[in-house]
């Protein structure tokens, strides 16, 4: 079980729990503002952009090349950017904090 905290662009913090699935799907299920997940998680829409806290980036890993190509579209993207559809939930993600980009 992993507890994941989302912080939306208007500062609202929501902590939710899950055992599996993607972080994007978890966010959509919990109506986290700013994460639409339009394409359902196949890396074609970039509507699930989050910033990982610098101290958590080792845990989540950095964006893959395909993710980076999508993230380039967002002027605000940085080295801590991830598409949350590419973050698979497991126990290792317990406690991470994700800032929603949009």
């Amino acid at each position, binding site marked *: 079980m992993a507890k994941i905290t989302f912080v939306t662009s208007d500062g609202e913090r929501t902590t939710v729990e899950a055992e599996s699935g993607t972080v994007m799907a978890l966010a959509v299920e919990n109506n986290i503002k700013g994460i*639409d997940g*339009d*394409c*359902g*998680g196949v890396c*074609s*829409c970039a509507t699930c952009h989050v910033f990982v806290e610098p101290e958590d980036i080792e845990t989540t890993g950095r964006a893959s090349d395909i993710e980076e190509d999508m993230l380039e579209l967002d002027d605000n993207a940085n080295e801590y950017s991830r598409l949350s559809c590419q973050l698979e939930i497991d126990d290792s993600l317990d406690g991470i904090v994700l800032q929603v980009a949009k």
Partner: protein
Amino acid sequence: MKKSEFPDPFEKARETTGLGEMDDQNDPVTMLLRHKDVRKTAHNWKTFQSGAAPGRIVIPSEVHIRDTRQIPFEVDPPMHKEYRNLVEPWFKRPLQTEYQEKLTIQINGLIDTVLDKDNLDAIGEFALVLQSRALTLLLNIPYEEAQTWISWGTHVFRSEDTALDGDKASILYDYIDAEIDKAIEYPGDDLYSVLLNSEVDGKKLTKEEVKGVMILTFAGGRDTVINAITNTLAYFAEHPKSLDRLREEPEIIGKATEEFIRYFSPLTQMGRVVTEDAQVCEYAAKADTRVSLCWASANRDTKVFENANEVVLDRKINPHVGFGFSHHNCLGATHARQIMKILILALTKKVGTIEIIDARENIEELGDFKRKVGFDMLKIKILAIKN
């Protein structure tokens, strides 16, 4: 060849030069065929602009039949962002549960009326009807209005024999003018009224700007959605096991939707006008000429997609450009995705098999290439599931 097979006519050119050439009303187009070039060029709005003369980035060009600028589609940053931010929340409404429930009722109802019907016209009696009714939700106007649009037939712009038809286009433009005037007189909670009441840069949208958004909404989502629906029906007809699989694994319907959009690529390409001499894929693009972003070719690029010519229903990584890419990605994509997802789910629940009775392909002539984009005619029988 199977009727639901959509060959890739661009393969050889994509792998050798990466380019294609076509003429279009004496304003030739250099087609960019590789995924990487298409995405890079789509992102570079300064050199490859959308805000040229209205209609010029569309292929075939609509310069001679349209003066109204489509918004935000034919506007470049930074103004583009102002318009896009204005309309985007409205076009994200399909993510709401209530919207999806209404769409589900529409689609279930339509399928029920055509089940087991002999010689069903998949385009005129199904796809067009579905698309038109769904559009009433997107515009938030009465359901009955769909009948008007259905009566226009499948192509608002296109005739069977000529690529462009000014008379048909004016049916749409005159209709939109009249609807805007109605909304001025009787404001409501429809898209026309919302736009008329909106401001960009501190100024109320003009009638012409509202018309620009409305033309985009009508035209961008008509042939494309109709082709996506019709092609999907043809696919399931010839791949009954795929329908069975989605019945058993409804959780992959989202992925299947993306894969159908990639494979069918309902919009073949979109143009850009070159603003300064530039280089793309070793091609010297001259200022004031046109290039096109060939989504259909990029979506079959084997450098990005394994088994690119196959439909892989649960393709996990699918960075397709079927809804375009970058600033100008499809505004109606959220609506289109919901149509596809809800349609596929409804088919898995109600339909056993689909038979193709007769078909005539719709082939686009694109210079050196001939591309099948859909059907001019598709007669089918949709058989109800036997419990």
